[in-house]
């Protein structure tokens, strides 16, 4: 009994003792800092009232009795949205726990909304490399966005607003104001806490990069000053680029949003209160645990479905769906795919620990669709969406998948975009294939079919020789290349890996990777080593080409020939070939690209016999020779179709006797179109 009590109480006593010591240490640090910076009056003339210097261990928003991440930050934001001006005025109290092991003497902050300025790095890059939503043929005033820190105070160090200065760690563009750095008067010692009180003002742009307003809708994404991540011994706080997303530490969010009373609000985390104010506004409070970002949306026209509950492995998950009125008929479609995605991800990778998932159907024609934030995603549909077009399902599934690959396995999206977008695209293929079938997971309408894995591969093959997967997201040649490589190539590379280590093994790898690295910031090597460790195979030859390199794979059946072995005999050349004729047959296989990989070849003879060959692909070409009483009918590379990264699938097979049916079918379409065009011209022109 005594022993048991000791076991039970010792950890508890230890925690209390450590907490007391830490607080004493923090107080001491503050006391030490006090002479250098006596508390000053805030900009509002009120003496700063500092909160508790600790990160709460709340579990209100998760189905867990204990925190699941190493919590570094606690954001408390009190924001007011002016729907007429599209502005946000807010006070942010950020508590930071220094778990870096070193003293921190400066803190960089992201000010993402400053990207929407014609001289920013984001816009400069988007203009030349392209972007998802905007071409920037001309600049319109409504495209402006800004994020201004009015004041910043630091616990124990006073008002340091004058110390703020913009930095441009990536490209030195002095006009870029998306990162601001704050030197402290006193460094924050290891394991210490520091608190920042920031008063800021946002001017939201008309939606760009999944943030801003459109008509009476607003999506508050990347809207508050967010501290960088101390990663591998340095601050990691990149400028906002046209092709980059985000990177942040886990923590706790308590956010109060004040909006007009007619607005329907959705946000990350769980809603904890809603209070109506006398000035015709209301204040809605949200709380999030173990998340690394916070987004919100508001529109007076959302129709809400929130009675759907998914019984997850760790507890119930409330599915809150905010739909556009014109899309209300699709709400069940959205809920169904959200539920199926939850099921599939829990089954394949691990539990979804959060109590909510909010799915937002954003304003039509806005650049707010298809985005992920922790426990909050945006979809994308339109009022006309036949059942056979699985676009809404694809978007919802993809963005939900980011709850795992980004939300929980929080990789650095600036530097390793393939690790969130690409791994998530691979999951997307697996999940949608299992729901809709491999050939029909994107389109199954009017005989037209398109599978998700084929879609991913097609996005890759057009840009195959431009960029490798393993590079900074902002270093891609173009937006198309970024998309084709980070999404399409990664998915195709991992699907091809299934063929090398086996599908079951790959499932095991992914499950292990998720469980091991959830609520952390893994690197690319963490992922690749997990694959090797779980599969027990050295796969460097593959990773060096597929992940780190930009080698292109293109294998080809170069030539197929069969002729009688006694072709030189005069009578043989005249004699009608019979079943006793022996043929010498050859199959030449070529490696056209610079990606070297072993491949199988299946040779089929006219008598139905099939032979499976294996080639290591080391040389540029090889030849297989046969002597049989049958000629070759066809030869096919990769007969199991496990290779998804071959740039040209047409030359992977060759049949000796041509079959013109496909060409005739396409020609018939072409003929029909040409005839119809001629008739239409004649209808209106003569």
């Amino acid at each position, binding site marked *: 009994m005594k022993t048991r009590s000791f076991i039970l109480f010792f950890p508890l006593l230890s925690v209390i003792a450590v907490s007391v010591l830490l607080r004493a240490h923090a107080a001491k640090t503050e006391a030490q800092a006090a002479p250098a910076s006596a508390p000053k009056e805030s900009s509002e003339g009120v003496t700063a009232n500092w909160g508790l210097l600790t990160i709460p261990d709340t579990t209100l928003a998760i189905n867990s009795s204990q925190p699941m991440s190493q919590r570094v930050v606690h954001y408390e934001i009190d924001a007011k949205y002016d729907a007429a001006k599209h502005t946000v005025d807010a006070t942010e109290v950020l508590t930071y726990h220094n778990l870096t092991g070193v003293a921190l003497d400066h803190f960089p902050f992201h000010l993402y909304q400053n990207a929407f300025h014609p001289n920013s790095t984001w816009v400069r890059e988007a203009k030349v490399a392209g972007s998802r939503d905007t071409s920037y043929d001309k600049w319109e005033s409504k495209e402006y966005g800004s994020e201004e820190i009015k004041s910043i105070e630091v616990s124990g160090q006073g008002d340091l607003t004058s110390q703020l200065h913009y930095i441009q760690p990536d490209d030195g563009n002095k006009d870029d104001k998306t990162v601001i750095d704050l030197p402290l008067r006193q460094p924050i010692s290891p394991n210490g806490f520091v608190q920042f009180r920031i008063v800021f003002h946002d001017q939201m742009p008309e939606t760009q990069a999944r943030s801003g307003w459109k008509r009476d809708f607003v999506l508050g994404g990347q809207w508050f000053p967010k501290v960088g991540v101390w990663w591998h011994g340095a601050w990691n706080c990149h400028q906002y680029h046209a092709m980059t997303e985000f990177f942040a530490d886990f923590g706790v969010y308590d956010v109060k949003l004040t909006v007009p009373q007619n607005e329907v609000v959705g946000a990350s985390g769980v809603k904890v209160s809603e209070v109506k104010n006398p000035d015709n506004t209301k204040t809605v409070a949200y709380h999030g645990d173990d998340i690394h970002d916070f987004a919100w949306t508001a529109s007076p026209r959302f129709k809400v479905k929130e009675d759907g509950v998914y019984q997850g492995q760790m507890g119930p998950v409330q599915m809150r769906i905010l739909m556009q009125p014109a899309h209300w008929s699709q709400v069940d479609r959205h809920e169904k795919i959200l539920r199926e995605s939850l099921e599939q991800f829990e089954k394949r990778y691990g539990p979804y620990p959060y109590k909510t998932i909010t799915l937002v159907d954003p304003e039509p024609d806005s650049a707010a669709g298809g985005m992920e934030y922790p426990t909050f995603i945006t979809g994308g549909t339109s009022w006309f969406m036949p059942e056979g077009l699985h676009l809404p399902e694809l978007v919802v599934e993809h963005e939900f998948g980011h709850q795992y690959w980004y939300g929980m396995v929080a990789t650095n999206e600036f530097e390793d975009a393939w690790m969130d977008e690409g791994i998530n695209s691979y999951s997307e293929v697996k999940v949608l294939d299992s729901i809709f079938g491999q050939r029909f997971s994107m389109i199954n309408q009017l005989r037209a079919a398109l599978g998700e894995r084929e879609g991913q591969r097609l996005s890759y093959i057009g840009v195959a020789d431009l960029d490798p997967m393993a590079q900074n997201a902002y270093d891609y040649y173009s937006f198309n290349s970024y998309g084709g490589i980070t999404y399409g190539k990664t998915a195709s590379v991992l699907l091809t890996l299934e063929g090398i280590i086996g599908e079951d093994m790959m499932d095991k790898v992914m499950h292990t990777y998720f469980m091991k690295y959830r609520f952390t910031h893994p690197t690319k090597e963490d992922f690749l080593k997990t694959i090797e460790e779980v599969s027990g195979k050295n796969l460097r030859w593959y990773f060096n080409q597929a992940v780190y390199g930009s080698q292109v794979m293109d294998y080809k059946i170069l030539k197929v020939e069969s002729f009688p072995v006694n072709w030189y005999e005069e009578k043989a050349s005249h004699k009608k070939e019979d079943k006793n004729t022996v043929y010498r047959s050859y199959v030449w296989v070529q490696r056209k690209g610079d990606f070297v990989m072993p491949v199988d070849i299946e040779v089929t003879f006219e008598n139905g016999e099939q032979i499976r060959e294996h080639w290591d692909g080391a040389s540029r070409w090889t030849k297989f020779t046969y002597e049989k009483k049958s000629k070759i009918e066809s030869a096919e590379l990769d007969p199991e179709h496990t290779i998804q990264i071959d740039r040209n699938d047409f030359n992977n097979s060759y049949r000796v006797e041509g079959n013109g049916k*496909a060409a005739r079918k396409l020609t018939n379409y072409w003929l029909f179109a*040409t005839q119809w065009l001629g008739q239409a011209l004649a209808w209106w022109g003569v």
Partner: protein
Amino acid sequence: MEERKGLLSTGWGRIAHNKRYIVWFYILNLVMAWLGAAAFSNQAHDYLDHSLLSSRLVHGMDIGVLIEMFAQPDFGTVSAARASGVHFALAFFLLTALFMPGVLQGFSSTYRLPRDDFFRACGRNLWRFIRLMIVAGIVIGAVASALFALQGVIVKAAEESTNELLPFEMRMLCLAIIFLVMTALRIWFDLAEADVVLSDQNAVRRSIATGFRHAWRNLWQLLGAYVLITIVALIILGAGLVTWEKLIPASSVAGAFVLTQFMLLLLLIPRFWQRGVAVSYYLENMVAPIVVNTLTPPVAVATPSPLPPAEPQAT
């Protein structure tokens, strides 16, 4: 309504008596398109016939395989094949313009127009038709440009609305109005063409003026007939596509070819029907009345009659 029905039925009667024109134009359409599609056909056969992957295009339509085919550099650029198709479609349009005077002449004729007369009408009206088409092109192009620009403004304004369907509804409404206006213009120039050919009018501007006057005066009657015929064309197109999707197996190239060709043959009829309506209207309303100059008989002057002739005497 009765007049419109009359125009529709007499217009239909003209194509019913001249079915051979439709068949010839269909053959012309097919041959031009066949030539236009030859480049693509060669490309497709070269690329697909020996690859096992092409089987995924036969049973159903694998969009992925299709996109990959077009994306492969060694398939060759589609732009050349597309240009070929467009050029032969244009060739059909020009040949239609060339032969249309003969058709109009045939439609107006109460007997089977001899081949010589048909081609004579074509040759005689070639330059007139070119002039007519230039004027029509300018008028239709200018009006269409203005209307589409207006549509753009309206739709853009509608896009500011929070009603998501409003831009689509506005676009459909605008397209319907543009269609009616374009059809009215087509009626104008169809009447002008009929006048040029059937009046042997060398002064095209007079035919344009006459066509405009009549199209304006009888707009609703003619527009109603034209719109009804267009609806028939849309029904043919819709029914054909549904039949294709429902009844023809995806792998049946021959079945699809027969059905699409039948559909294209039928689709030629409505436009000829509209021309039949224009010719009927012309003959009923636009033919200048034939003035017959008859001599006024001299007025008989009454003169005192002499004594009535004596009755013959019996002898």
